[in-house]
């Protein structure tokens, strides 16, 4: 695996830029520019920009991936005219939305109407700064990165409800209420499923969790937790079969009915960012992140950026499963959703915690082998 981290790249770029700029400038500016604090600040900014750009491009690719895959599921071809196989279609769509006039209903509350989508977008993208993507490709060591990621992830219902309420539209309000109820109901099982992972790995740090999984992916022994987590994530991501906050059949577009142009693009992008984050979390927590088991030939894991390659591959496969679900399941009803959430998912997630605790006690299972690095 590569030893160069993303931050090293950003740091190098910043140093190069500032020292280069500083060398041609007279003394007072020169001394100020090569100040290590400034270099660090620029490096952090560049790091953020690279991360943001990469995540945005990935998100847009994710939309393309979903469109193509849905197209195949539905016996059609998906986007295919802009760029090779429609690769640039979503950029064109984004550009179109960007150029559109953003309309605000006269009776809508201005502050909430604009702040809601913006905050939703910002909090969704923020998680990318926390998630490790490969060894060294994260913002640094955060001992509680898992908790922080989930905490930011669960901000969303607040902002959705703010934008829904301030839209001053009945459909938006209904959608916002559904969304809030649904996200709160599924927050709990998700966290409990994560507790199972934490119990087994003994760490809140995503990097540690992934490194532990090199030869012991958690999806097998913690299958129940994975199931609960995936279903909960589907609900959190508001994808079919849990997309009832924006059930277009009855609520037009749910909480984003009144939004158009760039504000709608914010919602749409943020939804896919969340979908990406959801898939990434599944990969990180249960599928071994960027690692491959050690019996895999080293040629497969030693080429440049191998970690990122395997990580993205796993992420897209997980997302493909989400698309598959979308193509083949109808939408559930609000009361059924909440009933399943409170009365099935929570007991199941509690059960998964108990199973994880037993796994920690037993340590070794017949098929899956022993839990590595416990108690360390």
């Amino acid at each position, binding site marked *: 695996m590569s030893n160069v981290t993303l931050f090293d790249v950003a740091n190098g770029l910043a140093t190069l830029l500032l020292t280069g700029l500083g060398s041609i400038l007279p003394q007072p500016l020169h001394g100020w520019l090569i100040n290590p604090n400034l270099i660090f600040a620029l490096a952090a900014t560049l790091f953020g920009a690279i991360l943001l750009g990469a995540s945005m491009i990935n998100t847009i690719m994710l939309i393309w991936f979903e469109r193509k895959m849905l197209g195949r599921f539905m016996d059609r071809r998906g986007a295919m005219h802009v760029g090779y196989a429609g690769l640039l279609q979503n950029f064109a769509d984004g550009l179109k939305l960007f150029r559109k006039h953003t309309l605000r209903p006269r009776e809508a509350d201005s502050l909430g109407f604009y702040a809601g989508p913006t905050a939703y977008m910002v909090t969704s993208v923020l998680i990318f700064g926390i998630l490790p993507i490969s060894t060294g490709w994260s913002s640094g060591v955060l001992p509680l990165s898992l908790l922080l990621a989930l905490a930011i992830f669960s901000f969303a219902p607040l902002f959705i409800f703010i934008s829904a309420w301030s839209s001053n539209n009945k459909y938006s309000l209904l959608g916002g209420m559904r969304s809030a109820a649904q996200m709160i109901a599924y927050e709990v099982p998700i966290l409990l499923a994560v507790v199972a992972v934490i119990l087994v790995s003994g760490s809140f740090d995503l990097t540690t969790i992934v490194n532990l999984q090199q030869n012991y992916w958690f999806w097998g022994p913690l299958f129940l937790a994975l199931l609960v987590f995936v279903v909960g994530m589907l609900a959190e991501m508001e994808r079919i079969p849990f997309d009832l906050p924006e059930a277009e059949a009855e609520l037009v577009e749910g909480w984003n009915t009144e939004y158009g142009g760039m504000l709608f693009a914010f919602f749409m992008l943020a939804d896919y960012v969340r979908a990406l984050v959801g898939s990434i979390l599944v990969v990180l927590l249960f599928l071994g992140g960027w690692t491959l088991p050690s019996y895999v030939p080293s040629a497969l894991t030693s080429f440049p950026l191998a970690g990122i390659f395997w990580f993205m591959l796993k992420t897209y496969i997980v997302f493909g499963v989400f698309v598959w679900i979308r193509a083949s399941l109808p*939408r559930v*009803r609000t009361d059924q959703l909440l009933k399943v959430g409170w009365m099935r998912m929570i007991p199941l997630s509690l059960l998964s915690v108990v199973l994880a605790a037993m796994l920690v006690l037993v340590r070794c299972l017949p098929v899956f082998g022993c839990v590595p690095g416990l108690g360390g």
Partner: protein
Amino acid sequence: MWVNMGPQHPMTHGLWNLRVKIDGELIVDVDPEVGYLHRGIEKISEDRHYNEIITLMDRCCYVAGIAWEHVYIGAAENALHITAPERAQWLRVMCDELQRLASHIMWYAAFVQDLGLMSPFLYGMRDRDLILDLFQSFTGGRLTYEYNRVGGVRNDVPSGFTDRCRKVMDWLMDRFVEYDRLCLGSEIFRRRCDGLGVLKAKECVDLGVTGPMLRSAGVARDLRKDRPYAVYDRVEFDVAKADAADVTARYLVRMEEMRQSVRIVRQTLDWLDHHPGPVLADHLPRWLGAPYAPMGNEGYLLKRNFPRGTGFAAVEEPHGEAQAYVVNTGGEHPYRTKFRSPVFVNLSAAKHYMIGYRVADIPPIMGSVDICVGEVDR
């Protein structure tokens, strides 16, 4: 809180407005508001020739144009005392059943789309296209056919049509299995549709509800069986029926009807293969403007010689019982036409099968009614 679901709303499948009073997610009251698509077909018919009204009938319901042509033609032929040749009758039956297939497939596509299931929508559109291709091959139209004529049909089917049609029917029979697997095989589908939008047989009869909705309530009433028109007494088929009176039952009835339609179409194709003949009656009055009618002296009847009369016809259209009432006072135009649209009546009963369910249930219930606004407003 009153919510206007319409006139532009994804649930409506057309241009109408369902006013819903909701309490949280619960439906307390509903008030369907129609008329947004009112084109005044009955008024326009007052100064149209008999054959020109067929054009209007295609626009009456945009998914069942040819069935509506049959409705009107039946009444007009009664009113004008004209009988269509046998082959034309068989062709009409074939068209009706093909149209029923197209309409039900369209219904299936829209209905599951309302439930949030995306793929079957495109499967449905794909399969419906095959039927539209068939229609196009002998009527020239894909949506508005103008195929029936007073006294027969406009033209015969082209050679090779029957084989082509048989292939499509075989394909469709396979697809129906797929459709069922996607819907009935899905636990979520069953949970959403079972026990939803119940309208019992007694209420159905009181409220005048007909078609698949009535048959889903356990009343095996089908005009094709009970009061055979055209040549329905010479084809074999079963009346689809279910007992639960809910959305799933309506789904089952429509799926079974599609299978029976395929059965009927196959029989008509066999008959058409072996019985060539004229498809338009001789001796039609020239003022009917029927193309291909013999224009010689013997075919020309003065209109004062033409008897007056009032005609009534009822046809089992894909959505239910459609009726036409045509008053002929001896002129070139009908004095009055009146059409009974099954969806109009099924929709008027909305209060009885919607109150007490949830907002999320509105699309499946309305989908199971199979609204076609064109024929509600006429």
